[in-house]
């Protein structure tokens, strides 16, 4: 009888082992990164488009724009990521005055920069007709026409001049602004690049 109990006990333990083994699984590096990463669109954008950063949106006050209505200028925010990181650590605002990040906002900004200041937005593929009036002009107005750029010191661009600069624009868009821009390297969002390249490929529709 005793023997039977002991044998049963051992058998149950052995049988129990595989169920425990399930707990020993690991996850891939990619899954870990996906779980632990700060989302630019969900976590950082709400901070950049309201509160202390409110002035940098919708382009009406002449400040560097972080967004215009529902379009987020990732490149404009990215180029200031080091600055934002410093401000999140208590550093000064480049203009006059102070900016107040809440502790929670500061930790999000710092974590996002530490993880490489990546954008988790995947732009939808460009489909259908891309036209100068409907697609290029809005990007030009918000991304290129700043007071110290093509709205001020640099020449204004229109349909004819953009068409004439096909080679330069292609180089710029293919390199996301690293080369081809006469005024020096700039940061171009993947969605902007895709739109310009599609416009050129479709034959510069007006």
């Amino acid at each position, binding site marked *: 009888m005793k023997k039977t109990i002991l044998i049963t006990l*051992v058998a149950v333990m052995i049988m129990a082992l595989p169920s425990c083994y399930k*707990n*020993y699984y690991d996850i891939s590096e990619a899954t870990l990164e996906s*779980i632990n990463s700060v989302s630019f669109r969900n*976590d950082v954008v709400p901070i950049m488009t309201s509160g202390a950063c409110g002035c940098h949106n919708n382009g009406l006050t002449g400040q560097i724009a972080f967004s215009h209505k529902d379009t987020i200028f990732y490149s404009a925010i990215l180029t200031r990521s080091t600055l934002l990181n410093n401000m999140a650590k208590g550093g000064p605002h480049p*203009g006059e*005055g102070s900016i*107040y990040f809440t502790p929670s906002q500061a930790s999000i900004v710092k974590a996002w920069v530490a993880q490489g200041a990546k954008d988790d937005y995947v732009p939808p593929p460009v489909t259908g007709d891309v036209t100068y009036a409907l697609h290029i002009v809005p990007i030009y107005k918000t991304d290129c026409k700043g007071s110290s750029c093509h709205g001020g010191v640099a020449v204004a661009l229109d349909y004819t001049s953009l068409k004439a600069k096909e080679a330069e624009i292609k180089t710029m868009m293919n390199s996301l602004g690293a080369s081809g821009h006469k005024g020096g390297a700039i940061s171009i969002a993947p969605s902007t690049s895709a739109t310009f390249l599609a416009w050129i490929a479709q034959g510069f529709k007006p």
Partner: protein
Amino acid sequence: MSIKKTQKTILLILGAFFVMLTIIRCTKEGVNASKIARALVEKPDSTVFASFYDSIAIAEADVIPDVNDVIRTTGVLSIVNSNCASANCHGGAIAPKLTTYAEIKTLVVPGSPEQSKLFDLMTTSDVNKAMPPINYGVDLSITEKTKIYNWIKNGAKETPGLDDFRPAAISLLTNGCASANCHNQATVGGQWARSGFMGVNPDTVSYTYINPGSGSINIYAQLREPSLTQVWTAYKDSVKKFFADTLANANFRPYKTFGTPVVASSRRGPLNTYDDIIMDIIYPKSIRSNSSVQYTHPTSGQKFYVKGNPLTSTDCFMRRMDSTIIYRNPITLVATTKNGSMAWDDGGFSPSEVALFKAWYFADPNIPDVWKYGLNNQGIFSYRKTGNFITK
């Protein structure tokens, strides 16, 4: 030692070994799994507005979409729907079902996120417990976790109230409007500071801002010495006393104390604290700050740069915040033009934030009814689109 005893000992050791092995293996995690970090690192920001349903406060019929493209405030239900309640999971056959307020509430202890299963499962780093399951590779964003935390913390209500609106609205104003060069106590571009007017007092520093778009020039000033912000506190006290008590007792800025007034380009008032904001609402800039004489005391002959009646204002807080409404002077009932410039122009507040301000404004008992509905509930705010007055 008998054979039987030896057998027994071996079996016991073996048994103990398996039990240990079971315990050790059950708690062991893989290298990557042990690095999972889903908890909120910082104590959640309790000023983030968190409602159960999306969008808030402004009726669809009264919305004029000229401040932004869309109205979008994601609530708890949407967050749970998109992360947990797909057809294959808790929106379908898998229990518990999480598609309605009542169903989601079963996983919540109102007031205590830490004791709530909903919050625990979405923030635990335990690879076996975490929801959504770790192997899906998706996790709620920090913003989403914070919203759920605050929704539970504030009582997990189906409909939000003043407790939800006020901290969020005040935080947007104090962190947003009072930042940088704008509505803070160190900025003395306003005429509120007796000794702070520009070019005269060495305690101030001025700078010029040229708008690159319009070319317009504004000159601002800031106090060099931050402790001088007590000037603002003293001014606030004097304004309150001036209107609440008697004109004769007003001994500070409200009446002219200098020969040639230095006109500042901007008369923006500080909005650093809740008290600053309430002061700005009850005594709007239009009645307390002007570059010309507004009122002469009938007996003393003192000339005041403020209006005698605190209600006869041509502008007010909500007019500057919300471009969907028209404001009229509570005394003269003369309507003004639409404004909203602090929302869509300088501040860039989204419609959902404007709606938040409005929800707080009309719910806050510290804002007197006369600044919500006018005298005798006549209405001072009407919707541009429908013409309907907001009344009690």
